[in-house]
Each structure stands twice: as C-alpha cells, then as structure tokens.
C-alpha cells in the first residue's frame, strides 16, 4: 500500500500534480522521515525563493512626473475657479453700476419733470410783465 506521499511524488514526477497537491507534497515531505534527495531538491528551490533584490529601488522619475501632473491639475482648477469668480464678480459689479446709474437717472428725470412743472407754473408770473404794456402800446396814457 502506497502512502499519500508516495502517490503524490509519483504524480509530481509525471508532472500531473496540481499546485495544491504540490503544496501538500512539500509539507508532507517536511514531516516525513527519509527521502533525503527529494528533501534536498525542495530545499534548494525554497532557498532560491528567498533570493530577493537588495538594491533595486522604485524609479524616482515617475513619482516626480505624477506630482507634476497632479499639480498641473490643481493649478488648472484653481485658475478656472479664480477666473470664474473674477468674471462673476465683474458681472455683479457691472450690474450694480448699471442699477446705480439707472437710479441716478431716474432721480434726475424726476427732478427734471418737477422742475419743468414748476417752470410751467411760473408761466403766469412771466405774463405779469405784459400787465402794463397796453398803455405803452397805444400810448393811452398821457405823456407828460
């Protein structure tokens, strides 16, 4: 009767094991007695997995570039907001100025109407100067 380990090993050499079975095989092998050659093999492979780069660094360039792009985005949106605010403010100011101008004009118009009304009412007074002119015209009064 073959043990689970032997079955798995055989399957392994035939390249018929799944990844899970290979993991199982490795752990079974670690716990088992004997099998020095197989243990050596998987030991070497495990050791090699611990080989990691020591000096390789994250490339810097890209980080700078992303920051730049980010800043560009920020700058663009700020500029957009600022100009929008400026345009809006400008528009508001112009509107207020126009309103003020209209109010002033209305007031002036009121003054003018009232002034002309007053002037009209002054007309009879103006006619007063003709009061004495009949005599002058026809010289009806004796000239002494």
């Amino acid at each position, binding site marked *: 009767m073959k043990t689970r380990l032997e079955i798995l090993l055989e399957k*392994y*050499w*035939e*390249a018929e094991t799944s*990844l899970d079975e*290979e*993991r199982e095989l490795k752990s079974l092998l670690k716990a088992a007695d004997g099998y020095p*050659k*197989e*243990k*050596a*093999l998987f*030991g*070497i*492979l495990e*050791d*090699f*997995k611990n*080989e*990691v*780069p*020591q*000096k*390789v*660094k*994250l*490339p810097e*360039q*890209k*980080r700078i570039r*992303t920051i730049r792009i980010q800043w560009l985005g920020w700058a663009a949106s700020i500029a957009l907001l600022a100009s929008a605010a400026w345009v809006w403010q400008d528009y508001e100011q112009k509107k207020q100025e126009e309103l003020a101008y209209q109010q002033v004009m209305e007031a002036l118009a009121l003054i003018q109407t009232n002034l002309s009304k007053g002037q009209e009412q002054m007309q009879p007074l103006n006619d007063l100067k003709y009061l004495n002119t009949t005599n002058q015209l026809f010289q009806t009064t004796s000239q002494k």
Partner: protein
Amino acid sequence: MKSFFEAHIWPLRGRLYRMVYLWTKDRDLSEDLLQNVFTKTVERQTELESHPNLGGWLVKSLKNETLMHYRKTNRLTGLEGTEELPQPESHGLDSSDQERHIFTLVDLLPQKQKEIFLLREVEEMSYEEIATQLEITLEQVKINLHRARKSVREKLVHQGINR
C-alpha cells in the same frame, strides 16, 4: 494612493529578479538589469497601463535588456549560452553554496525548461499563468515541465544533489 507601478509591477520584482539571476548568475548584474527595465517601464507607463499581458511584457523586456548587455560585452549571442557562464564567485560564506545548488540543479536544462521549472517550482504559478507570462501555449508548458522534472529526477537519482 499607490501608483500603477507600485501596484502592478513593484510586487513582481522578486520573481523577475530571480529569473534574470537564473540567466546571468550574477546578483549585481541582475539588479542593474532589473532597475533598467523598471526605469523603462516608468517611461512607458501610460502605454503599459492598458497592456493585456504586463507580466509577459516585463519578461520580454528583461530578456532583451539581458541580451543587449551581453551583446555589448560580446559574451553571448543568446540566452541559450548561459550554461557556459561561470558559476558565481563566492560572495560570502553562507550565500555562495546556496546559490550554486540551484544552478547545478537546472543548468543542464534547456532555457525554456529552465524558465518553466523556475516559474512552477519556485514561484508556484499555474500552467495558465506560466503560459501567459512566457507567451507560449499551455501544451508547451506541460510538455516542458514534464521534461524538466524528468531530467531533474534523473539527476537526482544518478548523481544526487546536496543542499
């Protein structure tokens, strides 16, 4: 927020490094080559963000980078020749033995089998993942892995290896 590079490429550095290391057998050189490829990756980031097979692209770029290096130094014309490269000099007491074993183990294998063996045994990738990464068919992965394991087994039985 993590950048595209940090999220998708940086986690692969160990796997990529081990692959170049297996080709070059030189730690420092492997790191330099990987760093070069990372720099290029960053330069072409926008294009790569929509790449359907990023892992495959990275492996291919690394391979090209390595070949370019060897072409410049006139040592090899293809990665098939890496078996002839000398085994790494011992850097320290404990690391040297450890790294020699893996090369003794896989050096007899042809390049393709070596890569597939590495991706399966060390990186524990599925057949599908290996096929995508190396841009070969599923069938080829299975056949090559079977052959690689067969050769390794023979080596194990006849010569034996030591850890």
